[in-house]
């Protein structure tokens, strides 16, 4: 009885072929694999929206390669490694030659390794990875690959930027390092341990801690006690999500007066979660590529950002998506074809414009270089952050810039390059 049923199912399967077929239009497709459901869905969806906006801008002003449009095709990976690989296989099936991703470095690692194998096993059908936010330093060092381009600064660069600023900050004398105990947090810790004595030898490291990551720790008060006992005036941390929000909240509740130097502790989601009282209780500094409240913020960028806000009902945040798509479009034009190998050669060394001057893609390791701004959350800003129509009442106030030269670091990358036809 049951086996008959299974037979029927299998036969129906063969009849109804539900695989999603590729649209056969003449667009240049970029598959974007991000979490669209689950705890990090908000970040994923925002990034997808940003990409679509910047692609649309290019399409509206004439497209590329004689009027062809760039099409962003999102794929949900639910932050599960298996799904990322599965979606990647779907992408390959659909003959899409460009993949982008950024939320979760471990997924980027999967994509890099899977594409390495695929590109090796399928010459002529290479797929390129446009990495917009996965910051693991190794991706442009020992894991570098011709078909991988990173458009964000890596962990080491960001830590170098933070520490350079800390070195000239008179308030910073004793720093406590605290990070999440996984690949990203550990590399932050390693970079800090290496760069602090190099760039800021007068600063004393009074504590160095790794915590169990991803919201497992509910009560941060014991850590606050450790901070207090050590006499630290600054916390240098790579923490993000609840690991950052809870820590800072606990600190504020305990009236802990420290400065937070971080990468992700002040992202818009966190600002909202913590609220204005906590976000402005002590300075929460972060390092990004652009700040809409910067006194020297260029006019042309402000115009683009206004368009973005009209489109998405949000304040601008990730400027790197703009130059990623602009450079991609420019590379297509230079290469004259949509073949990833030619586009790759065109991207090497390419320059574009950023919020504080020129930005460029280093040819040696495919790592983007740009000036970075250190800012802190404040209520005294001209443009407060708006998200989906809700105004948070606070925004980012520039503390200073770090030049790209100051955060240019050596690379161990030895890339095998294909032949440039």
């Amino acid at each position, binding site marked *: *009885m*049951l*086996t*008959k*049923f*299974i*037979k029927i*199912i*299998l*036969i129906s*399967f*063969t009849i109804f*072929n*539900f*695989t*999603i077929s590729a649209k056969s239009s003449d667009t240049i497709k970029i598959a974007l694999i991000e979490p*669209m*459901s689950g705890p990090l*869905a908000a970040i994923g*969806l925002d990034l997808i*929206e940003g990409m679509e906006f910047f692609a649309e801008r290019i399409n509206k002003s004439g497209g590329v390669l004689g009027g062809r449009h760039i099409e962003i095709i999102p*794929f*949900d990976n*639910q932050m*599960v*490694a*298996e*799904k990322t*690989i*599965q979606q990647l*296989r*779907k992408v*390959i*099936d659909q003959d899409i030659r460009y993949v982008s991703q950024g939320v979760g*470095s*471990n997924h980027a*690692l*999967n994509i890099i*390794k*899977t594409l390495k*194998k695929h590109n090796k*096993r399928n010459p002529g059908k290479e797929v390129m990875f446009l990495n917009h936010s996965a910051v693991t330093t190794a991706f442009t060092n020992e894991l570098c690959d011709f078909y991988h381009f990173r458009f964000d600064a890596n962990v080491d660069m960001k830590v170098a930027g933070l520490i350079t600023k800390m070195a000239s900050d008179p308030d910073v004398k004793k720093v406590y390092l605290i990070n999440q*105990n*996984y*690949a*990203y947090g550990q590399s932050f810790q390693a970079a800090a341990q290496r760069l602090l004595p190099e760039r800021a030898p007068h600063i004393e490291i009074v504590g160095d801690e790794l915590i*169990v*990551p991803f919201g497992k720790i509910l009560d941060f008060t014991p850590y606050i006690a450790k901070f207090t006992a050590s006499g630290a005036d600054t916390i240098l941390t790579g923490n993000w999500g609840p690991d950052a929000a809870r820590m800072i909240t606990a600190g504020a509740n305990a009236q802990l007066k420290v400065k937070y130097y971080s990468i992700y502790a002040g992202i818009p989601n966190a600002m909202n979660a913590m609220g204005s009282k906590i976000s402005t209780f002590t300075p929460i500094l972060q390092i990004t590529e652009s700040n809409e409240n910067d006194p020297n913020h260029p006019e042309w960028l402000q115009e683009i950002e206004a368009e973005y806000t*009209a*489109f*998405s*009902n949000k304040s601008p945040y990730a400027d790197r998506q703009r130059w990623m798509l602009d450079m991609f479009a420019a590379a297509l034009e230079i290469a004259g074809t949509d073949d990833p190998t030619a586009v790759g050669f065109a991207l090497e060394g390419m320059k574009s414009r950023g919020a504080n001057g020129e930005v460029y893609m280093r040819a040696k390791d495919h790592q983007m270089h740009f000036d970075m701004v250190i800012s802190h959350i404040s209520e005294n800003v001209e443009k407060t952050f708006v998200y*989906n*129509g809700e105004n948070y009442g606070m925004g980012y106030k520039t503390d200073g810039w770090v030049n790209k030269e100051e955060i240019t670091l050596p690379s161990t990358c030895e890339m095998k390059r294909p032949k440039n036809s």
Partner: protein
Amino acid sequence: MLNIIKSFSSWIIIALIAALLPMMFDSYFALTLLSKMGVLVIFTVAYNMLLGQGGMLSFGHAIYFGFAGYVSVHILNGIGGEIIPYFPIVLFPIIGAIVGASIGAIIGYLSTRRAGTAFAMISLGFCEMATAFTLIFVVFFNGEDGIQTDRVVGPEPMGISFGPQVEVYYLILFWTLLTVILMYLITKTPFGRMSNAVRDNPERAAFIGYNVRHVRWIAFTLSAMFAGAAGSLHAINYEHIGFESVSVVQSGQVLFMAFIGGVGHFLGPIIGAIGLTYLDSVLLDITEAWLLYLGVTFAVIVAFAPGGLAGLIVMHGPIARTNKSLLIGLIKPYLAAIGSSLTGIVGVIGIIEMLYFKSLISKGEGEIIIFWTEFNANGIFSWIIFIGLILGGIYLCKITYPKAKEGWDHAISVVKSEISL
């Protein structure tokens, strides 16, 4: 001889169809999906040895699945790096089985001292611990990133390198058939029967003279062994293993599949594994609300059809055997009931999709694609249509459900009278 072939005819036909599937579905993604189905069929049937046949609810079965995967990946990498002598990929599930059985024996020894809810909680505790282990002991498990591997290693007998996905599919198909047949045969052995007896009435089984604890322990170990075999195939399929494969989420997934398929019948888990894997991979690209649908489906099945899909089908077995025309007579009222439910469901889905759309994306236009047609989420019209469908559906259900029930009662009473004759 002919009799054996006859009784196995259903299996043979299924095996043939499965072997021919790659002809119809030859894309990378489709083959990956089919391979995944095979792996999960093994895993779920193995899990059902514990749940359906042994009456033990475990939340920790992913431990054996995942750890077998980790060991397999390490060995594959060892072969690739020429640290370990070559071991044929075809035989890797044996490695997985050994790993699964070893760990299963240890944890089983500790867990089977208790039964019922205690057993379930112990398994939950172990699973959380195992997940934490994989995140902390980075040297072996590589934490968040998981471990990548390359399955194209060693000599290639008959030109089979397992690079192409279709070769992996056939490998998995072979092992799926082998392990499922083995597990089926186990249910026919005295041990299998004792496992059922222990499930139904442990006291009585003990009184007959069987050591209840030993029976459970052996069932546990066997179940873990097959789960381990599945785990190594999983690692080969994705060329990657991560902490998610050890987590409670993975255990929960296999529990879902077994239950929805139907734990009371041997083939239930197979249906569940195939069906849910398919939905899981295809749905998430169609809708963002798929988790909600999954949860609702699950709750509905648990509440109204706890025997799962297999249970529903087998329920009709007596009717089919007694008088085929009765079964055919049921088709009309069933179709009517299903049709009216679908009307309501379409309405509900439409509303949910639009709600999701409105809450998550606040772009200017309100176009959303539901059921392959475009609707405007901002216009009142779309909402009216779907609400109308819901109301219409409810009304229709009120008419058709009693008719369906009537038909069922009638058929059953005929069956009963035929039997008593």
